[in-house]
Each structure stands twice: as C-alpha cells, then as structure tokens.
C-alpha cells in the first residue's frame, strides 16, 4: 500500500472542495453565503501528481519538512498560501510537503507517517492530528462517529496512533485540529496547543492568523531560522 500517493483528483484544479462550497456556507453558524462570496483572497485547490494540495515534490526529499494532517492541513476554505505548511515554508524557506487529506482519520495519518519514516528517514515531521471520533475503514475511507458518541475507544485509538509514531521518530512536532484534548493522557510526547484566531471562507477551518501562531511554535520547536523580513 502506497500511502504517499492519494489516488483521487490528481493533477486537478478546482475552486471548491468538500465543505468549502457556496451551498454549504448557508448551513454554517459562523458564516453566511455573503461571507463566502465576499471572501477577499483567491482560493483554488491545485492538486499535484501525488494527489495532494501542493506543488510537485522535489527530487531530493532529504531536507524537507513533512506536514501531515486532515483538511486543516490541506487548508480547506483558505488559499494555499494561507495553509500552515505554506506559511511555514515561506517563513523558514524549507520545503514543506503538504500531506493533508480531507476527513482523514488518525490511523491513516499514522500509516502515512510510518511510510515516510521507513522510506525517507525524515529530519522534520509535523503532525496535526485529526478528531478522535474519526475511525479508519479502509485506506481511503473513514467513519466519522458523532462527537457525543465518543468513548474510551476513541481515546485509545488516538493514543495508539500518537504513541506508535512518536516511538518511531522522537522529534515530531505534534498538535491537533481545534478540539478538546483534555482527555488525552499518557501520551509519550508533547501535544502542542494554540488559540483559534480566525476562520476561512467556509467558516469552519482556520485561516492565516491561526496558522501563523502554529508556525511560530513550530519554528521555535525546530529552531528554524526566520525569513519573515523578506516578505
């Protein structure tokens, strides 16, 4: 199984995706159709030949930063330039590989991470873990249980995924999508937190202000040199 190739919509460009569409905006508490329509920055979803929202990967992957996660990493509802991997790339000048997948379950993120560790000996890996209530069905399909159906199994699943990959690679930067993590104990690495500061066009995923605060924390963690002044 090749987890580094997401076999959907490869080499495509679209103006909407998933929950980021004008019809969905009518049903969101934080956004109206008017907000969606008047979002002031250009958004397109340009998918590379690997199936991810990113430019083509470089031939040499030795020094890249691997960015794993779900739609918050992919940057649904925001321009590519506002995604946290893109901002990290802009500020650090390190090539950041965006591996965000819409709706991804943590087990898929674990499998992607394991393949990277096994094949690429990564120097830098960042994981924005997904919701606990997302479970794995098959490699590319996930069950989204209702949040009020959360139980110890969900927490155990999260803990398993988290601890497995952090045992394999000790210096991972770990964070999560905006969700309650107070029940996540016995983790073998730090789970970084951040404040939710803004929302993208879809009124659900965060935009560049939140992404910047996450990137600041990542920059400190890896002690990357900053190139903000060149912006």
């Amino acid at each position, binding site marked *: 199984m090749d987890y580094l190739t997401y076999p959907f919509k490869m080499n495509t460009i679209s*103006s*909407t995706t998933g929950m980021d569409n*004008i019809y969905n905006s009518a049903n969101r508490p934080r956004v109206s159709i*008017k907000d*969606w*329509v*008047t*979002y*002031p*920055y*250009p*958004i*397109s979803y340009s998918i590379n030949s690997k199936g991810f929202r990113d430019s083509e990967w470089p031939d040499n992957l030795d020094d890249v930063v691997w960015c794993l996660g779900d739609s918050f990493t992919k940057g649904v509802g925001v*321009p590519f*330039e*506002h995604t946290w991997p*893109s*901002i990290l790339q*802009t500020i650090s000048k390190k090539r950041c590989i965006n591996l965000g997948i819409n709706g991804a379950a943590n087990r898929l993120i674990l499998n992607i991470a394991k393949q990277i560790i096994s094949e690429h000996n990564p120097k830098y890996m960042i994981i924005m873990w997904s919701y606990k209530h997302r479970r794995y069905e098959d490699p590319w399909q996930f069950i989204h249980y209702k949040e009020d159906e959360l139980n110890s199994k969900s927490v155990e699943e999260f803990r398993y995924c988290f601890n497995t990959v952090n045992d394999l690679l000790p210096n991972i930067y770990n964070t999560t999508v905006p969700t309650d993590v107070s029940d996540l104990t016995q983790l073998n690495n730090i789970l970084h937190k951040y404040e939710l500061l803004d929302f993208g066009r879809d009124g659900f995923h965060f935009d*560049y202000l939140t992404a910047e605060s996450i990137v600041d924390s990542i920059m400190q963690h890896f002690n990357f040199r900053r190139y903000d002044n060149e*912006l």
Partner: protein
Amino acid sequence: MSKYLNKLKRVLVLTPDGIGSTYFQRSLTVYLNYHGYLTKNYHDLCNLTTDLPTLVKTLSTDRTNIVARCSPYRSTEFGNDTKKYLKFCSYFFTDIYVISRCSFESVLSYSNTHKGTGTLNVYSKEQYKQNKNKKSYSIEKDLFIESLKYFEDFYVWLDKYFPKHKVISYTDLITNPDTLFKNEFNITSDKNLSLLEYNKFNTKRVRNKDLTKYCSEQLLKFIEITDYIQYLSKKGLLDIKKPFPIKKITLREKLNEISNFRELLDVYNNYSSNHFEKISFQQINDRAVIEDNLWTI
C-alpha cells in the same frame, strides 16, 4: 491583512453610457495587469449570464481581480432577480465607481449615439470613418429631453442601489489615467504604461493627423501596448474585438457640427433637476480649448 496574498480587487463601474465607462474598464484592466495584478474584464455582467446563481458562483470563485460594469437599462435582463442582482453587486464589489462628467456633454453624447450615429464607441480607424458624422446635423429636442430624463433616472437609481459608490472625474480619467489608477488602487510599481500618450496617439491616428513628431522610442512603446492588449486577449482577460475606445467626437467637433447646439444647451440649463449643474456657452468653449490642447488636434 494577509502578508502572503493581495486582496482581490473587484471593481464595478456604474454607467448610463456616454460617460467613459468603457475606456475606464479597458484601461484599468490593462493597467492592473501591467502592474502585476491578474485582472479580467467582464464588461457588462449581463454579457456573462443573466442567471443570478450562475453569476454569483462564477464571480465568487474567480481567482483574478475583476473589472466589470453595471447599468440600469441592462440590469433588468435579470427579470424578477433584478433587485437581488443589484444587491449582490453592491456587496460583492470592493470598489464601485461612477464617472463624473459634465452632464450636458454626456447627454449630448448619449442623444447623438442613440439617434445619431448609432454607435457608442469606436475602436479602429475604419470604425471611426464609418461612424463619422456629417459636417452638420441636428439632434431632435424631444430626444434630447428624453435623454435628460434617462440620465436623471440613472442618478436616482445610483443613489438607491449603490449609495456607497465612489466618484472619479472624467477629466482625470482622460487626462491622467495612470496617476488616477495608481492613487485609487494603491499601486506601488513605477512601471510606465503611458495610457494617456497611447490614447492621444490613437485619437490623432484615426483622424489622419500628423504623426511624424513621434520618435521611434514612443512608437515602439505604443506597439508594446498594442501587443500587450493582444496578449491579454489571448489569455481571456480582455476582449480584443473591443480594446480601447477611441475618442469619437471631441467637444469642438460637437460645437461645430451640431447645428442646434445652443438650443440644446438652453434646454439643458432650463431642465429642472438636482443632478445637473448649469453650464454656460463660454464654459463649454473654454473646455473645448482645453480638450483640443490635450489631444493636440
């Protein structure tokens, strides 16, 4: 504000026709592209579609800056959705303009176009020749009054549906478009496009005036602009069939050729309206002199 992307410029010009809105759209589209802002000119939005959901979806997912126009007489093509269409335009567009031009001149141009030559804008020497008025002609008084009413209605429509519009001067647009656009849209690039010189050159060219005083460097610049317009057209950003409208009738030509010019001026000055400023024959003459000097015709 994002450090990573510029906010999209969504520019709408509101027009009754005859106030320079086509020149505004074309020249602004070329100007913004030339200065690095990918910009598409839709011209009248009704040309794109008269189905409101389609229009909303198309415009809101367009990644380019947008320049378009909206007019009361074409808005009704949206049928029952006309009011919704106007409301959408009022909040979707970030910069909504109306061009302030001497109302007498505008109404004169409008009357002349709609019952005179029949063509609002000309884009080539051939079109100019075809649409050139005879040496002397008159404009029917009733038609002129009808046109005054039409313009009055436009201003009422403007205040009703677009109370937050910005006003730019026709004179600024014609005499110094580069500076006008630079200031209005906070353009920091110092690249020189010379829209004014290009416009002057074309105005003379279609009238077979002496062009020998242009040096090769200037002519090359005009060729560069013409090529650039074609390039934008190939990219689907501008309609090549209608690039820049060329000055069709100068004020001096109107003065000399419209046989009942004075009568129309009296009608205009006696028309009761809060929107039309009074103007004397002397003021018109002075303005014609300024315009002649601008075009150096």
